[in-house]
């Protein structure tokens, strides 16, 4: 019997993703050969899931802005200097140790994002929520997450219509970009807050209707949203493979050369 994609058991994949990300996080700084091998393995898994390696690599750049946090280390650490000189009126030096920390954090986050991307590509979010419930995620969080996922598009639609109404009622002065329409910044924030308040009231009313409907259908207590319909028969094999991958990543990090 074919299973609906939202009912598929993602427990094995979740454990594999978490162990892979943990393995990557535990890799020593500067293990560039291991990073390359792990990325090849991840890209292969991505290709098997229908993700072209370059598309997956581009998707991994989503965490790029956060690398700014590690960027200063390249210039302020005084150890292992690889270049020092003047850039205009400023004295600048590049630290090998700082560069290693920066590259390590950037590459690790880049690969980890791709691992998460493959997980979501293979399993829809409803399936992941159901599998997390099967992995003993508390009922209130699983039900809450199930409802959030179920109603997010509906409320985003409401929000889109409210934004369209705001745009339709806001004339754009000649020669001004739309970013500058409206009054002062506090006024714009007030309008935005009003929209948020109105949307909350709609969500509140919707919650009341959902509760009424559930009560009418005889539900009491938990709604058990996001339940797993059919467990994966090969779960133990998948978890064993995930543990094997974790051990392989850790061993490669310990054995392969570092820079």
């Amino acid at each position, binding site marked *: 019997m074919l299973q609906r994609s939202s009912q598929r058991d993602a427990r094995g994949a979740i454990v594999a993703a978490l162990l892979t990300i943990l393995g990557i*996080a535990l890799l020593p700084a500067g293990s560039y050969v291991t990073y390359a091998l792990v990325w090849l393995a991840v890209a292969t898994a991505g290709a098997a899931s229908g993700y072209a390696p370059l598309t997956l690599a581009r998707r991994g750049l989503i965490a790029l802005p956060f690398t700014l*946090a590690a960027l200063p280390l390249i210039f*302020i650490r005084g150890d292992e200097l690889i270049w020092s000189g003047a850039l205009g009126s400023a004295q600048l030096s590049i630290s090998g140790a700082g560069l290693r*920390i920066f590259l390590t954090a950037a590459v690790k986050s880049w690969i980890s994002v791709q691992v*998460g991307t493959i997980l979501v590509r293979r399993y829809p979010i409803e399936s992941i929520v159901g599998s997390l419930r099967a992995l003993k995620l508390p009922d209130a969080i699983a039900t809450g997450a199930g409802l959030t996922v179920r109603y997010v598009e509906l409320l985003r639609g409401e929000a889109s219509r409210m934004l369209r109404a705001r745009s339709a009622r806001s004339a754009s002065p000649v020669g001004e970009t739309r970013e500058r329409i409206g009054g002062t910044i506090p006024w714009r*924030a007030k309008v935005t807050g009003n929209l948020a308040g109105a949307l909350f009231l709609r969500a509140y009313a919707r919650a009341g209707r959902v509760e009424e409907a559930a009560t009418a259908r005889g539900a009491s207590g938990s709604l058990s949203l996001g339940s797993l319909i059919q467990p994966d028969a090969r779960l133990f094999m998948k978890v064993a493979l995930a543990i094997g991958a974790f051990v392989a990543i850790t061993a490669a990090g310990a054995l392969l050369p570092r820079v």
Partner: protein
Amino acid sequence: MRPLLHIPDGFLAPQMALALWVATAVVIGIALRRIGQRGPAAASQTILMGLSGAFIFAAQMFNFPVAAGTSGHLLGGVLAGFLLGPWAGSVVMATVIGIQALLFQDGGLLALGANIFNMGVIGTLGGTLVARGIAATFGNARRSTLFGVGVAAWLSVMAAAGFTTLQLGLSGTTDVSIGLPAMLGTHVLIGLGEALISVAAISFIAVSAPEIFAKSAPTAPTSPRRRVAAGLIITAATVSLASLFASTSPDGLEKVATDLGFITTSQAAPFELFADYSIPGFDGVAGTALAGVIGVLVVLLVIVLLNRLASARKGS
């Protein structure tokens, strides 16, 4: 303008990530227990929490133009905490942050515990308690409630940014002396936007649905001692945060004295407890912040003593 609070995987040391997972699990566990204690009302609370999660996602689409192509948007932690209660609000934010990490890879899976801790526990739970504390301190009127929400929303963003930087610093992936001012400096404006939107949203709800506002706003009278304690905490937190932006330049009199050359005629004070707002053994920002907190305590002590003296004289 987008907040940089969702830490991706690879930036935190594994020990730090796991420790924050444990801390988050403990707090969220307590929150779930508190929600569960509501008995039959817990089921309807869970439904409202689920819809509120969807609301937070959708409300984050509401951006407002700030200047030159940048815009701010709602994060929603204090808003959710105020409307649903601090415990339910923190669970909602934990769910939203979890879905953001899973669905959009906005923040890592191993770093999820840290992200929930910074935004869901510190930002939402802590922020809502601060909002309620401020509202109670000033008498729980509508204005004081809105003031409390505004201050707490701003503080929640700043605290989340501060904790994020400290965790990165302890993991060795940033330099706190550079990262902290940079992060807090950026998030000052983001926090301001968060405060303005949160206040406007609560104000709108107070007018449009007073029964929901009345349910959310704390109404219990507060004892004078609790008011003083809340005021003390808020003042100490504000002084500590403000000290991060303290200028190292001389004040007006010192500058004039230096320029006109009579600074050398100044005489040292007969005693110096915390010269130049520094505490022995604490360098830089930590020393200045601690000196500020000690200053707040000394002022409080003086006020309490003067108050007692005045009361004693009045009695006699």
